[in-house]
């Protein structure tokens, strides 16, 4: 906006400016209304209802009364508590394993080897495969009656139990399969952004390829690495589909329990409490993440 420089604004100019500003605000409002309004209506309002319901207000089919009972039920009853920790375990295990694999593979991808271009396309395929499909594909491989089991049986061995097991290894495997490429995309991009000179300087000063990776590449990629880890953890923590398909009868992941409470038992209040716990836990993790990132004081430019 080009404004005529004037030392003193006449009252007419001032009111015109104010009117223009007010118009701008109206235009802004109108522009934002569709998108933001939609989300406000269909996200914020339901979520507010969830929180209210979890403390007994805005109840479905019964009188409203403020209470912590549902949260208490969550904490005291073993199945819900165990479900929370099981989801937590799935999140941690998947994230840690995915991260380790993604770091190694991203580092190896920086090296020139024959066929690297093809691999760089292939590894992105799991990204477009929905987790349900991934569950199916992997299930057909590692299920008790799956292909690998049959192969191994052919040779006279037994196939270990990978799915429907207590620790959820089948679930973790599918989620890792799905998330390693996701992390690789983020981490590779960050690693490729490191100026080549800096890596050459490290080599020149005596750092072996492993030392360069350890002392230079990883520290400078930390922002991307931590962001990827955070996204994966929160997603796995709140995952429903894959745990529902591949987990054992006990413990069940918290989202799965929520769904049963909601749809089979119409226990909306309890489901809301469980959902609030999930959300709160995710929020806490997010908060801790931001604290950690701020704490580094932007060492990584």
């Amino acid at each position: 906006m080009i404004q005529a420089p004037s030392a003193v604004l006449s009252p007419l100019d001032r009111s015109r400016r104010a009117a223009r500003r007010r118009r701008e605000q109206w235009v802004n409002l109108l522009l934002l209304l569709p998108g933001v309004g939609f989300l406000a209506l269909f996200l914020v309002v339901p979520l507010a209802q969830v929180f209210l319901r979890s403390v007994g207000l805005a109840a479905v089919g019964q009188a409203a009364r403020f209470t912590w009972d549902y949260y208490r039920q969550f904490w005291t009853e073993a199945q819900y508590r165990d479900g929370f920790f099981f989801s937590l375990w799935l999140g941690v295990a998947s994230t840690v394993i995915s991260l380790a694999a993604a770091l190694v593979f991203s580092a190896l991808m920086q090296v020139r080897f024959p066929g690297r271009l093809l691999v760089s396309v292939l590894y992105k395929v799991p990204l477009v495969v929905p987790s349900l499909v991934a569950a199916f594909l992997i299930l057909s491989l590692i299920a008790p009656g799956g292909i690998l089991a049959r192969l191994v049986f052919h040779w006279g061995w037994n196939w270990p139990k990978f799915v429907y097991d207590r620790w959820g290894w089948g679930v973790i495997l599918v989620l890792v399969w799905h998330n390693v490429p996701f992390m690789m995309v983020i981490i590779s991009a960050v690693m490729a952004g490191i100026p080549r000179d800096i890596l050459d300087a490290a080599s020149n000063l005596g750092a072996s390829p492993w030392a360069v990776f350890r002392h230079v590449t990883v520290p400078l990629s930390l922002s991307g690495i931590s962001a990827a880890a955070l996204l994966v953890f929160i997603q796995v923590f709140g995952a429903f589909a894959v745990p529902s398909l591949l987990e054992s009868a006990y413990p069940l992941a918290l989202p799965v329990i929520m769904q049963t409470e909601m749809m089979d038992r119409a226990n909306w209040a309890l489901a809301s409490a469980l959902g609030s716990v999930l959300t709160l836990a995710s929020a806490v993790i997010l908060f801790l993440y931001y604290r950690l990132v701020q704490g580094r004081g932007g060492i990584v430019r």
Partner: protein
Amino acid sequence: MTRTRAFPSRAFPWLLTGLFFGLALIGLIVPLIVGALWSLVNPRAGWFPPNLVPPSLSLANWRAMFSVPEIGDAAVASFTIAPIVTVLCAVLALPTGYALGRRPVPFRRAIEFLVLAPIIMPGIVIATGLGSMFIRVGLEHTMLGVILVQTVVVLPFMIRIVTATFEAVPQDLIDAATNLGAGSFSVAWRVLIPLVVPGLFAGGVFTFIGSMEEFVLTFIVGSPYIRTLPVLLFAYLGGRSQIFTYAAVVTFVLLIPTILLLFLAERALKQEYLAAGLGKM
């Protein structure tokens, strides 16, 4: 990134090749082949252990897509809902992206957080809230309900892409147009929108794919009356009846358009970058 190094062992790159292709084989190719085989299993013979390969193949399962109503219905549902969701997202995201991308907007951080929230929140929690809300309003188990619910989780991606596209339009172009006499509307119509179309297209592809693959919310709000392909797949994979053969068919009906669309999107994106780059010159 190209690196030329003196390797202690000349064989190292080949080891990597072996490693990655081995992984691709076990992790990608074999499962896909097995999945394809499942879709081709002769329903009369089945495929039971200890058979490593289906004893006989047939296209019966694929033909079931047309004969078994639920598969056909699910396919129709998926391919109907996805375009509608995409258009809805485009309509909602365009003004939002314009405002966020080119105007000084108050409460920007709050709005950006709101846009980010559906991506970060667990889908099941959103489903809990929306599910009960829709029951009250009577949208539960309806097509409209599913469309709205999918839009909630897919819209943020569209908004982010469109915002980024709007931001990337160089102010110089707008100034030049204004200087040459274009009013706000002309600028928007003749300069901004054409430049934003590639981004819109890319966003549209991602939205379409996102809608096709969306599961949790559709499951909670839609089933059992409205079932999309992912919801059907879930039914075939879990619970008491595991029907791998149908699951395989549904899998490929889901996957093939998705992968095709992604190739298309990648092509479109490259051209967009090219245009943006040349435009900057």
